[in-house]
């Protein structure tokens, strides 16, 4: 047998490569065929070997069901070993071959009458495992006999068989009255039979919750307790588990059960011990606490629990989990056993962590010194995770045992002195928690913490440190510097840190308003304008609004974070703060809800504009510097032009077009489009109102969501400090996240092309919007468009590619060095042919103001004269492709409403050179 087993191994390793096997041939058919022959052999030994081979194949997952009849033929034998092997096979394949399984029934029935109890038991056990309905009816009679068998081994097997049968056909079991027989077996003389009967009944009772099958009364309990002392260890577990379901009538009964179960605590099988502990823990509830016995019992429970910890690591782990539960329920049991839970250096990490948890649960004023000394040692171990947990544990001790807090803090400080990076970071997080729990108590350590500021690279530690600085800003001289240093890389920080930094700086501002105004503006702008994170923006707007409303009132919410659970901040919805100060219009403008919250597009735009264009209010702190400047510029230009141009932009010829003058001549290569281009440009006059200069038009919807599978793009163009920018708002109105954005332009009149990729780094979640600014250059391929300022754009995302076209204001193409020399201007003006002229009218212009404002848009006034009561302005501008535009603007004096503007002459750069 050994030989073929060896070959079995080799066969499995080499598979079909094996050629020299008399047992396993290469084709499956041949193998089965050979086995068949051997199974039908006359020699008993050969038969046995053959059945073994069949079972070996079965184990490794080969299908040998084809041999069913041949194997069943071997069943009728007096060789117990062979019989067992055949039964093993039957159990596995009977279900797949129910018809053939009937063939075996006769033998089973016969075997149940066998004089040998081993065979009787074997037959009844195997029959129960053949889960074929047809067989069960034949099973009933033999089972009934076996339940009353004289041999306990057969009875205990039959008891289990009832449970098996019940699982297959519950009705049959009830009809046949097996349940009553099973109940009788609880009083059997053999403890093993009792144990199996209890196990079977418990299981059957589970499927009939109201059946009263296991009616535990004092008599049955008494029987069970008697059997408990005699049966095997596993039987004891069944009985103990069953006892745990019993509810004693009074404390005297529960005491007497406890007394009889207590000896199980010293059993060598730890599973028995634990089951006994379970019973005792339950019944102890009934005992009055002042009873002497209660105290005795408590004392008796500790040593066996401690013993459980000397087992194998797996058992130890399960034991620790159980002990953890016990400790939560009754810490007094193990309160003196702290030392057992100290970790050993060779414990697996999961055992260590579980021990750590129990240590903290057991920590009390009495043993805290010991625990802390131990935890401090753990902090020098090699395993980083464990070290971190140990440091955390020190913090938990401080919070659990108030008297120990000081000691914990000093232990943590010692650990910080080690300068081990992860220890320091973990310690700072823990100290923050201690600060929160015991405010204004240990701030003397802050100086030490601040020394380690630079070494913090984990978000949690950074956030903790920022919290500490913000919270104790009044005690830290250079709190503003510290926070400012974090602000530098604001956008690279994790959200946790950003939020904390925002709160901390607001706190700082409230404590030291004079020095930190700039800082708070900076952080508010970073949070509200440059961030894609709605949480951060929300919080930024709330603070901003609160601060602008009433700095004194604003002191409250940020201070709420002192006690603060983090949840508070998220719960503080914009609406709620709004209602606190409904009367402040300016504040409402500043802190209106962020775009992400607003569902409707119109509102969104309106709000965005409000936010962008409202000049800084005087009541609150001015908006942050960067946007402040931008806003200032907009105020000057936008506001100025608004008032300058009045309200009827729509009806009157657009001034943008007025400025967008036609080229008089083009470089040679441009010759073809030039003539058409001129007309086109003049035609523009009738087109849409074109805004001008650094003033950027309100965003218009370029790509509606309907056309682009949920992606909505609105945008505008602007020229900011010499760079042409396309400013877009991408809104995801689809249900799924959008990623992988990219943008491309079609060839266009002025060679506009993106100067860089579209910066949409984070995926755009549903209902989220993002502001993107795309710098443009004019070095792309040129093609005349219709109209001239038309731009065709393709935007791609993970869903599809979408196309739209938009029109850009010519004014954004005016370059900064468009101021022409007076002489040159004069000479050029004269050279311009009349047919290159165009005229437009603008209403409501103030001349001087206009001149100043226009210069902001790179439209330079060269000269000004007054003729016949008319003010005349001569202006020049230069396009990105080198085309000059010259204009004359006439303003009727005394009638500011009516303004005439005569335009236009164009020149080409190289012509200017020539002159």
């Amino acid at each position, binding site marked *: 047998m050994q030989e073929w087993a060896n070959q079995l191994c080799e066969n499995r390793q080499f598979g079909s490569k094996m050629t020299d096997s008399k047992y396993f041939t290469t084709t499956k058919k041949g193998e089965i065929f050979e086995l068949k022959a051997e199974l039908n052999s006359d020699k008993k030994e050969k038969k046995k070997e053959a059945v073994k081979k069949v079972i070996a194949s079965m184990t490794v997952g080969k299908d040998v069901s084809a041999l069913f009849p041949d194997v069943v033929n071997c069943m009728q034998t007096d060789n117990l070993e062979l019989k067992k*092997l055949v039964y093993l096979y039957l159990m596995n394949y009977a*279900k797949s071959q129910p018809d053939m399984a009937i063939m075996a029934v006769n033998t089973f029935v016969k075997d149940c009458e066998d004089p040998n109890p081993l065979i009787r038991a074997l037959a009844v056990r195997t029959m129960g495992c053949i889960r074929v309905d047809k067989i069960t009816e034949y099973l009933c009679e033999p089972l009934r006999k076996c339940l009353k068998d004289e041999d306990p081994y057969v009875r205990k097997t039959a008891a289990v068989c009832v449970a*098996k049968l019940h699982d297959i056909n519950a009705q049959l079991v009830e009809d046949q009255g097996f349940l009553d027989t099973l109940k009788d077996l609880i009083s059997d003389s053999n403890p093993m039979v009792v144990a199996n009967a209890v196990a079977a009944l418990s299981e059957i009772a589970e499927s009939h919750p109201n059946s009263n099958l296991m009616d535990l009364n004092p008599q049955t309990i008494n029987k069970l307790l008697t059997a408990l002392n005699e049966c095997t260890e*596993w039987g004891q577990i069944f009985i103990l588990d069953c006892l745990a379901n019993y509810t004693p009538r009074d404390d005297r009964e529960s005491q007497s059960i406890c007394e009889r179960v207590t000896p199980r605590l010293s059993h060598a099988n730890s599973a028995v011990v634990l*089951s006994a502990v379970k019973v005792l823990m339950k019944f102890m509830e009934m005992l009055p606490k002042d009873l002497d016995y209660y105290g005795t019992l408590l004392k008796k429970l500790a*040593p066996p629990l401690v013993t459980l910890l000397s087992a194998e690591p797996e*058992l130890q782990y399960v034991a620790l989990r159980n002990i953890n539960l016990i400790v939560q329920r009754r810490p007094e049991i193990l309160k003196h056993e702290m030392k057992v839970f100290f970790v050993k250096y*060779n*414990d697996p990490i999961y055992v260590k962590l579980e021990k750590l948890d129990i240590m903290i649960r057991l920590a009390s004023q009495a043993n805290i010194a010991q625990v802390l000394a131990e935890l401090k040692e753990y902090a020098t171990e090699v395993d980083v995770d464990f070290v971190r947990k140990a440091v955390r544990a020190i913090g938990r001790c401080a919070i659990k045992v108030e008297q120990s807090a000081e000691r914990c803090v000093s232990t943590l400080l010692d650990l910080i002195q*080690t300068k081990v990076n992860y220890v320091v970071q973990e310690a700072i997080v823990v100290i923050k928690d201690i600060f929160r729990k015991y405010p204004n108590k240990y701030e003397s350590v802050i100086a030490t913490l601040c020394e380690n500021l630079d070494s913090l690279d984990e978000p949690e530690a950074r956030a903790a440190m920022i919290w500490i600085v913000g919270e104790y800003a009044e005690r830290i001289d250079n709190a503003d510097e510290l926070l400012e240093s974090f602000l530098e890389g604001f956008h690279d920080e994790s959200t946790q840190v950003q939020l904390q930094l925002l709160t901390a700086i607001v706190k700082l501002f409230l404590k030291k308003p004079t020095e930190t105004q700039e800082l708070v503006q900076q952080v508010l702008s970073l949070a509200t304008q440059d961030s894609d994170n709605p949480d951060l923006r929300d919080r930024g707007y709330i603070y901003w609004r609160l601060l602008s409303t009433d700095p004194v009132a604003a002191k409250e919410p940020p201070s709420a974070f002192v006690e603060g659970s983090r949840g508070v901040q998220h719960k503080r919805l914009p609406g709620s703060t709004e209602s606190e100060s409904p009367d402040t219009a300016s504040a409402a403008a500043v802190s209106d809800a962020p775009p992400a919250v607003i569902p409707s597009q119109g509102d969104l735009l309106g709000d965005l504009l409000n936010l962008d264009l409202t000049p800084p209010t005087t009541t609150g702190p001015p908006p942050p510097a960067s946007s402040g400047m931008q806003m200032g510029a907009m105020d000057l230009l936008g506001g100025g032009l608004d008032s300058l141009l009045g309200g009827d932009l729509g009806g009157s010829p657009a001034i943008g077009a007025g400025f967008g003058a036609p080229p008089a001549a083009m470089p040679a290569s441009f010759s073809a489009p030039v003539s058409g281009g001129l007309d086109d440009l003049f035609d523009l006059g009738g087109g849409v109102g074109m805004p001008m200069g650094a003033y950027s038009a309100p965003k218009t919807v370029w790509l509606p969501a309907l056309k682009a599978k949920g992606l909505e793009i609105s945008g505008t163009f602007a020229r900011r400090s010499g760079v042409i920018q396309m400013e877009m708002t991408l809104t995801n109105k689809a249900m799924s996240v959008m990623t992988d954005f990219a943008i491309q332009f079609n060839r266009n009149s002025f060679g506009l092309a993106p100067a860089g990729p579209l910066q949409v780094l984070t995926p755009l979640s549903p209902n989220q919007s993002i502001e993107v600014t795309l710098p443009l250059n004019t070095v792309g391929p040129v093609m005349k468009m219709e109209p001239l300022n038309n731009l065709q754009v393709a935007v791609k995302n993970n869903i599809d590619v979408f196309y739209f076209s938009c029109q850009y204001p010519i004014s954004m193409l005016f370059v900064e060095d468009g101021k022409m020399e007076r002489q040159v201007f004069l000479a050029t003006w004269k050279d311009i042919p009349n047919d290159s002229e165009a005229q437009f009218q603008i209403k409501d212009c103030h001349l001087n103001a206009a001149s100043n404002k226009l210069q902001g848009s790179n439209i330079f006034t060269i000269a000004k004269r007054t003729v016949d009561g008319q003010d005349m302005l001569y202006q020049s501008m230069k396009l990105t492709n080198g085309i000059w535009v010259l204009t004359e603007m006439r303003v009727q004096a005394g009638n500011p409403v009516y303004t005439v503007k005569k335009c236009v002459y164009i020149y080409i750069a190289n012509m200017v050179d020539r002159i």
Partner: protein
Amino acid sequence: MISQVFILSSKGDHLIYKDFRGGAGNDIVSIFYEKVTALTGDQPPVVMNHKDIYFVHIRQGGLYWVATTTAGSSPFTITEFLNRLAALVKDYCGSLSEKSVQMNFALIYELLDEIVDYGYIQTTSSDVLKNFIQTEAVTSRPFSLFDLSNVGLFGAETQQSKVAPSSAATRPIQSSREQGGKSEIFVDVIERMTVVIGSNGLLMKADVEGEIRVKCYMPSCSEMRIGLNEEFSIGKSQLRGYGAAVRVDECSFHQAVRLDEFDSHRILRLCPSQGEQTVMQYQLSDDLPSALPFRLFPTIERDNGGRLLMYMKLRCDLPPKSLSQELSSPDQSAELKPQSRAVVWKIARFAGGTQLSALFKLEVPSLSSASMLEVGPVGLSFELPKITATGLQIRFLRLSPIQPGPSQRWVRYVTHSDSYTIRI
């Protein structure tokens, strides 16, 4: 209740698969193997679940021993059961390995049939089982060098003349009948020490867990009497005899042990079953009767070149074996393990009453005075033959009735380090 039991090799091959309750999918074994191999080091490996099936497993002999169960069962019982199953298979097959399990699959199926019925654990006692088990164990012969590395607790000490051959205790219990195996009985007293010595040199914790194990190859042994030290006492208050008492805090016995002579004469009476069993377990904490076996005197400093100097002086305080001391220093080696950030100093043999010292120079990048604090504890692992930390001795081992034919009795003492830590 156990639904299935299976044994897998470390590579995931099915060695044994037994379904007790039916209804489990065929892929359950592979699901388990996927899960167990996907575990990371810090996840507790004992219990895993897939839908409503729970896997409980242990690893022994390089094999996975797995039981599946439903939510309501106690994982503790099942883990304990798996340990017993592994022990039984070891008893019956001689040793635990992929090969031995593979060769004895028929025997193991037969065992499983008797041990568990419909998921209820029936018995794990080899005494009971011997009545039912028919299959003979198959052992791998010839004896190979490979097996030497598997020598378990009952292996031999090579220096001694009166020793059992190393393979003596790794044979199947049932082979004694037919293969003419000798009647032998092995008794081991095994103790494991857990010691923590603080950085100030003070003893912070010293625990001993001990057990007496018996491995019996006697088919007809009716009773065995094990005599312990007469002055053996249990608990803190109890003292017996004069002089240094052998004392333990807690003591538990195998259920087959009869203790009627224990109180008066410290004699354990039992009828050992075939195979291996733990007769008695005991614990002692914090109050060792003898000095600790090892003392370490570490000095750690920085030299001028920024290197870390660790000077270790290790002294063995056990009584010297004999007057003739070995003059040559024992074989030693040292190795830096970058992965575990540890230096491993190996000493093959260490005679009592001697001391060894070593100087380790470590190049540590950016060594600062703070990094000195990072130098972690020293862990010692060792095995002390012929010594018990508690002083527990076996006075005598008597078998009754007197065995016919030659029979041998082996008694061995050994103390292992469980976790012997010296903090720096």
